[in-house]
């Protein structure tokens, strides 16, 4: 019989340490829905999503019940929408609305993939698509958008970086009544991954199968709890504990992902083991770092602690499943992590420190609120820095930043739910407009020439 201690440990992980399957995300290819007419395409996309994802909510609920590990979010990701709208530029919104309706019909909380991939260059239809993003985010509730503007292979499309500074600002202004919520559903990527199950950056890559199940497992609370019992342990001992914990968490993800794909008649894609915090107490990545011995996240030593955490999580995950993918690592969104929120409020952590941290963990500057009057070129500068970190280090980096209209440093903003709350953080008062306005493509690094 299975060991008693292990059974109790599993139950405690769920009941006391917030262990959960954070998301079951169904990726759906919508290439078969492309027509030369916006309405026809939108209708076909709606129908296909509703048919394929019809049972996702029910089956995710059943799985959670049978295994005793709750599935928090059910989501859908689609083929990057810019590829669907190529022949009806200017009418992209028709599709955006249909996607949102489909998300509501099947009952998923977010649908990702109102996206464009322009890391090397931008076609005219992609430019038109990107310009539709603020309006799309304003008119929809559950649709999420992302734009890939750089890669280690192709360099950084600085024209797209310049444009995205404006698009983020416009998205925030259009949703000013909700404190710029539109920008919270928009991610700018370098080296975007095609099988990421987490929002707002999920999309169904062009190299993916027809329908795919990707599962995101989380568990900052479980790791935190495991480290609590290791007072005085050395760094390699901590790494070992994190690795073992990550192993167990990932195995649950793999089991659930395989079962979900079987029941939903979809291919099994990947398990993404990411320590994704929520604003709930006991579900914080910042608190893991503090448990390691930092007075506050943001203190000197934070980057090193995070590097070790991220690496150990990956190693445990890779041992547990041959299908680890997505982003897999630690997330450091400010507004979604109670430890981060407190550190930002007290001034213990700054945008500069966050930027440094993103060079050693998955994703990047995430859910950071900045003053509404930040110039769009400064936002582009923040994007460019983050993209450069990703490009040079062969990793995914992202920017999800909210220039909150009419708010300034010292104010706070409340997005609610999983998106949490955040203090407005300061950005450098020095401009970078001349640099950003130069445009063109930043060449790929020397180590991209591997062929």
């Amino acid at each position, binding site marked *: *019989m*299975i*060991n*008693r201690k*292990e*059974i*109790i440990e*599993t*139950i405690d992980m769920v009941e006391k340490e917030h262990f959960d399957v954070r998301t079951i995300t169904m990726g759906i290819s919508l290439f078969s829905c492309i027509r030369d007419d916006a309405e026809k395409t939108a209708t076909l996309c709606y129908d296909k999503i509703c048919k394929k994802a019809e049972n996702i909510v029910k089956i995710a609920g*059943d799985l959670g*019940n*049978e*295994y*005793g*590990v709750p599935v928090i979010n059910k989501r859908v990701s689609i083929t990057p929408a810019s590829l669907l709208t190529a022949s009806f530029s200017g009418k992209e919104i028709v599709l955006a609305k249909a996607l949102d309706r489909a998300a509501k019909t099947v009952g998923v909380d977010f649908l990702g993939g109102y996206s464009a991939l322009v890391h090397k260059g931008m076609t005219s239809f992609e430019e038109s698509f990107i310009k539709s993003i603020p309006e799309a985010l304003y008119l929809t509730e559950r649709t999420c958008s992302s734009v890939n503007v750089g890669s280690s292979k192709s360099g950084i499309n600085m024209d797209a970086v310049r444009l995205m500074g404006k698009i983020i600002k416009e998205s925030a202004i259009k949703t000013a009544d909700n404190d710029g919520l539109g920008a919270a559903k928009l991610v700018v990527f370098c080296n975007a991954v095609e099988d990421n199950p987490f929002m707002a950056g999920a999309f169904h890559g062009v190299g993916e199968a027809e329908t795919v199940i990707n599962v995101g497992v989380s568990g900052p609370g479980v790791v935190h709890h495991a480290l609590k019992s290791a007072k005085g342990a050395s760094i390699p001992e901590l790494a070992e504990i994190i690795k073992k914990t990550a192993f*167990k968490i990932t*195995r*649950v993800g*793999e*089991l659930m992902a395989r079962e979900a794909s079987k029941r939903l008649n979809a291919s099994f894609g990947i398990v993404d083991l990411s320590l994704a915090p929520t604003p709930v107490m006991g579900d914080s990545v910042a608190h893991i770092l503090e448990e390691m011995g930092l007075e506050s996240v943001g203190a000197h030593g934070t980057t090193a602690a995070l590097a070790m955490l991220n690496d150990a999580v990956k190693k445990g995950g890779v041992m547990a499943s041959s299908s680890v993918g997505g982003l897999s690592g630690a997330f450091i969104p400010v507004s979604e992590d109670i430890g981060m929120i407190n550190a930002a409020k007290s001034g213990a952590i700054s945008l500069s420190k966050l930027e440094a941290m993103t060079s050693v963990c998955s994703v990047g500057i995430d859910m950071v609120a900045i003053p509404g009057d930040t110039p769009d070129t400064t936002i582009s500068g923040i994007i460019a820095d983050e993209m450069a970190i990703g490009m040079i280090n062969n990793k995914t980096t992202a920017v999800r930043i909210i220039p909150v209209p009419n708010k300034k440093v010292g104010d706070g903003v409340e997005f609610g739910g999983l998106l949490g709350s955040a203090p407005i953080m300061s950005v450098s008062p020095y401009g970078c407009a001349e640099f950003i306005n130069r445009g063109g493509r930043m060449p790929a690094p020397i180590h991209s020439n591997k062929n």
Partner: protein
Amino acid sequence: MRAIVTVIGKDKPGITASVSTALAEKNVNIEDISQTIVQGNFTMIMLCELENAKVSLLELKKELQEKGQEIGVSIHVQHEDIFNAMHKI
């Protein structure tokens, strides 16, 4: 298919009896059982075979949870695979 039933709560007479009666009523076979009491806290773990059961795992879970509320203990019913996945290489 096998499930692990875990009963946790304050010790008192009749817990084992009422849980195993509930299982028997649904034709669920108990293959292995272990129980301990640590500082007054009762923990019982049962390995159950549902092959010939009259109800599905989800139905059994619902019924046992109601039973647990009735007798003042918490009862978990989980597919055996979750523990194999987490704790075996």
